[in-house]
């Protein structure tokens, strides 16, 4: 089944128009980044509202090095390494934070990095880089979108295989323990700090290599190319289908990318009123996120599975009710204004007990 999917997605670029091919490539790059974020948020239980910063660091590393004469392939290899190094360094203080504080710290980090880039002429300043060379070795450059599409497909496959194996491995199981309860994990000997840093760096590396391919493909990079909106979009991609799920991140990236393009297209069709693009891009998108967080906090797939299990004769899997900590904290943010319900006899509802 998976082979069928792999073959179908490999052959798809042959039928896509130039614009849709670009969407395919971006989709793949965001999927790779989202898989890393899914590891971080789902497996290691750490929220990141600034993951696009590592995508940007990868892109800028690749752009600056190749514009200074370094081989584009070497620059592409160095992009994830630098992104991971930055994550490892900045993770030491940042990962001591929890919940909302960690979320805002990652967001602040992205804003700081963008500000530094804007004020550093060597990094292109506020004006950015144009004419970034295409990926290539020596005289041969990858110039067709089709080539980039297959490169992205290849990267996505490699990342998925690596990540799926990581999750099933011993360190992967230790990570899952981390996500549920750091105290419990620590008590059975999991080196919590080191593991969190390692996952943070790995997720940054995924974002970094994706950012590198992005800049060689688009040929342009400026602080405006990597706004906070991109970080939020990545979180939506990860959340929508299920945290900690590699397939979930892939489908989330695919779904959100296609949805955004469809909304974009529909908004500007002939005869559409002038407010339609604004309505579609903000209202529709925001509505989806709120609905998912409030009603399907574990993601669409686990939510659907639960509904399926609740049918007459079905068996509900207790594990599927688990809500990963980052979503629990997002959810509590949304629900904090609602009065808590107590049962008729005065005892607290299961809702209340669980929240304690």
């Amino acid at each position, binding site marked *: *089944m*998976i082979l*069928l*999917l792999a073959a*179908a*997605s490999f052959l*798809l670029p042959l*039928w*896509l*128009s*130039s*614009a*849709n*091919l*670009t*969407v*395919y490539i*971006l989709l793949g790059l965001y999927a790779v980044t989202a898989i890393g974020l899914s590891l971080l948020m789902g497996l290691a239980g750490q929220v990141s509202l600034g993951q696009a910063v590592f995508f940007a660091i990868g892109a800028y590393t690749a752009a600056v090095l190749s514009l200074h004469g370094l081989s584009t392939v070497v620059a592409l290899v160095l992009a994830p390494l630098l992104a991971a190094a930055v994550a490892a360094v900045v993770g030491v203080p940042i990962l001591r934070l929890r919940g909302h504080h960690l979320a805002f710290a990652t967001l602040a980090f992205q804003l700081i990095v963008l500000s530094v880039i*804007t*004020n550093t002429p060597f990094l292109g*300043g*506020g*004006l*950015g880089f*144009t*004419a970034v060379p295409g990926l290539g070795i020596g005289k041969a450059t990858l110039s067709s979108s089709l080539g980039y599409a297959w490169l992205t497909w290849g990267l996505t496959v490699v990342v998925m295989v690596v990540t799926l194996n990581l999750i099933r491995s011993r360190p992967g199981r230790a990570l899952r323990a981390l996500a549920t309860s750091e105290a419990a994990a620590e008590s059975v000997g999991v080196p919590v700090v080191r593991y969190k840093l390692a996952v943070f760096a790995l997720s940054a590396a995924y974002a970094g290599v994706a950012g590198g391919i992005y800049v060689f493909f*688009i*040929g*342009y990079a*400026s*602080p*405006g*190319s990597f*706004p906070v*909106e991109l970080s939020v979009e990545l979180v939506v991609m990860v959340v929508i*289908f299920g945290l900690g*799920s590699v*397939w*979930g991140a*892939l*489908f989330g990236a*695919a*779904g959100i990318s*296609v949805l955004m*393009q*469809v909304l*974009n297209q529909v*908004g*500007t069709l002939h005869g559409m009123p*002038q407010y339609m*693009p*604004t309505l579609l*891009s*903000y209202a529709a998108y925001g509505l989806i996120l709120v609905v998912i967080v409030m009603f399907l906090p574990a993601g669409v*797939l686990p939510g*659907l*599975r639960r509904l399926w299990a609740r049918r007459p004769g079905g068996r509900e899997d207790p594990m599927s009710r688990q809500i990963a900590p980052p979503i629990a904290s997002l959810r509590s943010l949304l629900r904090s204004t609602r009065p808590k319900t107590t049962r008729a006899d005065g005892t607290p509802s299961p809702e209340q007990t669980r929240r304690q």
Partner: protein
Amino acid sequence: MHSRAGAGLAAVVALVTAAAACSSGSGNKAAQATTSSPSAGSSSAPIKVGLIAPLTGAFAPLGQGDEQGADIAVSQINQSGGIDGHKVDLIIKDDKTEPTQSVIDFQALLGQGVTAILGSSVSDSARAVAPKAEEAGMPYISLSPVDQTVNPVEPYVFLVPATTPTYTTRLMQWFHAKGITRIAVGYDNTDIYTTNGYHSTLNEAKGYGVSVVDTEVFQTSTTNFSTIVSHVGASRAQAFLVWSTGPASVILTKTFAAAGLATRMKLVMTTSDATTLYTQPAGSAANGVVMTAALGVIASALPPSPIKSEIGMLAGPFAAKYGGEPSEFAADAYSGAEIVFAALKEAAPGFSHSAIQAALNHLSLLTPDGKYNYTPSDHSGLTPDDVAVIVVENGAFQPTAWEKSQFATLPS
């Protein structure tokens, strides 16, 4: 694991089918329009022109103006019978103020077989798309004030807003006429238009006997200008020239007025602030502020002239349809559309990209933005005479006394 993979696979198969359906849909359009000319059999097939604009995102007010201006131009040309008997079909794409989206939009327009593209007013989008348009041999008429778009000149890329050297020369002419020899300069180092403006100022000042006695740097997001204003106040500048856009312009203006500097120093802003989005929030602090602007902004004060009639062709329908005066962005888009139509007329009946480009290369056309004279080595087409030096009086834009003295050399 099995059920998850199964559900997931079903979802992906659905996605893939949907994507293939979408792509085959646009693929058909591409097949129909490979030569970018109306199909031979039908003599009334529409001519497609693309517009990429920031309809959503941070620059949505600019995109709104772009859409309004282009829309009026297209309605007018279609009402008068179109071009060579063909109606013009304007295809609008939203770039969401993101360079990545603008690249996708460009490729979509390319696939739909448009004859030319009016480019986004967002500088990031213009800088991402212009090289790709050049590579594809697609005439690209940029609505973003980025000097680098036409320096060096790229065969297929043309510019509608004036370049910062053009604005700067006009300002220097004004400084010279007013006997101002010492200025302070402030600029936003996160924006390419404002940064270019600063460099143009440094380049041209000496030639007009003007020396820059103080330089201040800020960002589009800066909210506190007290330090900058006190530095400027302590300098011996006779005027403070500020290259800025957005809220920063308003805050700086108010801080300047509150410091009482207006009595001994002229505050000079630039074209990006020639809008009610600046004068309304700035209120009385903007009184007496001088700035550059397109002539359309002071249309009512112009003597009867070809340029005044041309501006009226936009202002009249704009007031009727949207109320109020057209913004700089509406004027740029309207002028850009007129430029494209003029080139299309000459490129009839094939409307090929190369014929349009050839027509653009010697285009001479009066628009609300001024008189464009494109040549193979000049893809900006405007001169300082196309720029007005205006002053804000009680929230309204008026020509400065010096500008009035220049009315004899209005573009025509």
